[in-house]
């Protein structure tokens, strides 16, 4: 039996400070952008009365999905008892919390009245899936925090029952959380592009993919910065397999989603718009999600058979999967809104309020910066946590005295 050891982020290359500095700058710009939007109103964003959710929501949803997916490594090790993943359990927990906080920060700072956050935290309409998500998100931080405690506290970690219980609770919670996120769209009966229960499993599959992609990138960066290879050859191979399966799952649910819409009478219009006639949305779907974000990285991983190729293919594929993720969520959120609401089916409609026309949306710089700052916040929080507490595994193994 090998004994796992963990350490804090103490010794690292000076380049880590460059990364931290870059993230601090992006974060500061993001807060500046939020203040700018708060001061002048959303008129300075690209959003309007047709496209009410824009680029910040794309980044927020990506981060929230990735948060629940990042926890997978801990879940695989504890819930499914795969010891190879044990060294990454702590790190996956803290990255999950950091990604969620990053996503929520973007979501909150994009509110029309962000200063009323306390209202959102204290006044609930329990029929709203949004209100449920507020519980699910804050609960996720608490549950994963407790899960980390059960792993890291000297006495608590001795209790197998506590560890298993927390692992199952966290695993169940993350599945429910992602289901809730998917149903924000799935429950929107008014919008043809959504209104489908498959949004929940689609989002769960996407969360697996984006969460693992983020974890791979964090491990690669930390390996480089600390000079210790955190991902063993064995685990790199497993990551390669998992990423491929997750990407194929997302592709499967995406195909089923679109085919179902195509098959259902009256929804062909929105499908033809997204997949054929939608301009930037069609390009984002085929070029961004399918080619760049699915086929290309899948091809990379499929060709990576020796360990050296896997080493450079994994991070590259992860970056491509995340680019594909941005494209996927862009098409879902913004493309779905761009297609006009059908108030009078079968009629040609027009109005001064853009009825019957494809809505236009030009993302503004403040929106982009605000969205990116969510990623920076998540990465800074992760770095801070790694600095303060022993989350990083020592990959050297030694015989346990007790064995």
């Amino acid at each position: 039996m090998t004994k796992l050891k963990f350490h804090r982020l103490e010794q690292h290359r000076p380049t880590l400070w460059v990364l931290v500095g870059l993230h601090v700058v992006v974060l500061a710009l993001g807060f500046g952008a939020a203040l700018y939007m708060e001061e002048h109103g959303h008129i300075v964003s690209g959003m309007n009365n047709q496209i009410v959710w824009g680029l910040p929501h794309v980044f927020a949803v990506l981060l929230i999905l990735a948060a629940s997916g990042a926890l997978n490594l801990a879940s695989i090790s504890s819930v499914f008892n795969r010891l190879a993943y044990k060294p990454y359990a702590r790190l996956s927990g803290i990255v999950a919390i950091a990604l969620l906080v990053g996503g929520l920060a973007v979501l909150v700072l994009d509110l029309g009245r962000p200063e009323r956050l306390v209202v959102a935290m204290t006044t609930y309409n329990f029929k709203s899936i949004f209100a449920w998500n507020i519980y699910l998100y804050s609960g996720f931080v608490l549950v994963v925090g407790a899960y980390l405690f059960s792993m890291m506290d000297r006495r608590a970690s001795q209790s197998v029952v506590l560890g298993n219980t927390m692992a199952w609770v966290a695993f169940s919670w993350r599945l429910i959380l992602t289901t809730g996120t998917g149903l924000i769209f799935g429950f929107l009966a008014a919008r043809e592009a959504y209104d489908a229960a498959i949004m929940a499993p689609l989002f769960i599959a996407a969360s697996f993919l984006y969460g693992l992609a983020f974890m791979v990138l964090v491990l690669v960066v930390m390996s480089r910065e600390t000079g210790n290879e955190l991902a063993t050859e064995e685990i790199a191979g497993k990551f390669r397999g998992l990423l491929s399966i997750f990407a194929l799952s997302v592709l499967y649910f995406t195909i089923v989603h679109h085919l179902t819409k195509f098959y259902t009478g009256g929804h062909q219009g929105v499908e033809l718009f997204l997949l054929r006639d939608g301009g930037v949305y069609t390009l984002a779907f085929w070029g961004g999600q399918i080619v760049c974000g699915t086929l290309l990285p899948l091809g990379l991983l499929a060709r990576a058979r020796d360990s050296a190729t896997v080493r450079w293919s994994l991070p590259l594929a992860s970056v491509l999967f995340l680019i594909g993720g941005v494209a996927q969520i862009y098409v879902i959120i913004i493309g779905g809104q761009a297609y006009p609401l059908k108030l009078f089916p079968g009629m040609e409609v027009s109005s001064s309020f853009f009825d019957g026309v494809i809505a236009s949306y030009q993302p503004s710089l403040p929106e982009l910066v605000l969205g990116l700052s969510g990623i920076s916040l998540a990465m800074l929080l992760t770095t801070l946590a790694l600095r303060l507490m022993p989350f990083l595994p020592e990959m050297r193994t030694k015989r346990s005295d007790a064995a």
Partner: protein
Amino acid sequence: MSAESYGSHPVVDRRVLLRGAGGFLVTLLAPGVTLYAFGAAGHASEAPASSKVRWALLIDLSKCPAGCDLCVTACRDENGWQQNGRPETDPQWIRKVKLRDGRTGEYREVPVMCQHCDKPACVDVCPTGASFKRADGIVLVDKHICIGCRFCMMACPYKARSFVHQPLTDQKPWAPRGKGTVEACTFCVHRLDSARLPACVEACAVKGGGAMTFGDLNDPTSEVSKAVAKYATSQVRADLGLEPAVRYRNL
């Protein structure tokens, strides 16, 4: 009250007494008479909304002339949602949607506003309860607890809601608005509460084609109830089952 006392016996001037009683009666009955005109048991502005009332609007499109936007301008003037020359972000509480049947070439213009649904999707999805339905069926936004998440705008199938994208000036005291919050037609709730018709209905009746009939759907003697019982009417996207309070004739 005018009264004089002789010793311990108060003597009241009969004429003054009658005048006072008459005035009291007029005060008491006038709002009811006004509301009776559009078919409802009224209530004073301080009284809470009653679930015995279900406000509804019937629009006869055969009486809604093409190019007429009296209802729109009346609503804008009444509620102060001025246009800023930015149509994509400017609010619109009511708009005229132009319809053309591609096969027959038939043309209609349909005033569309918040449909004040009995099962409003906007109320269901609002995380804070800022979107709410009054007892009398009017769907409103509580500007004090709206956080500006716009989920209600995503959920509304009628595109009836607007988000306030920029700072506001010259607000009407009876129709408070707020930057960063969502807003929509209120059925001119401030007018209803003081027994007056919504501004669009009044403008349409006075200067327009008289296409709008407003009243209490729960009162079988109201004009709107009689019209709904007598004529075939339709609701926009009735398939969604939201049961809108706005109905259309000759759609």
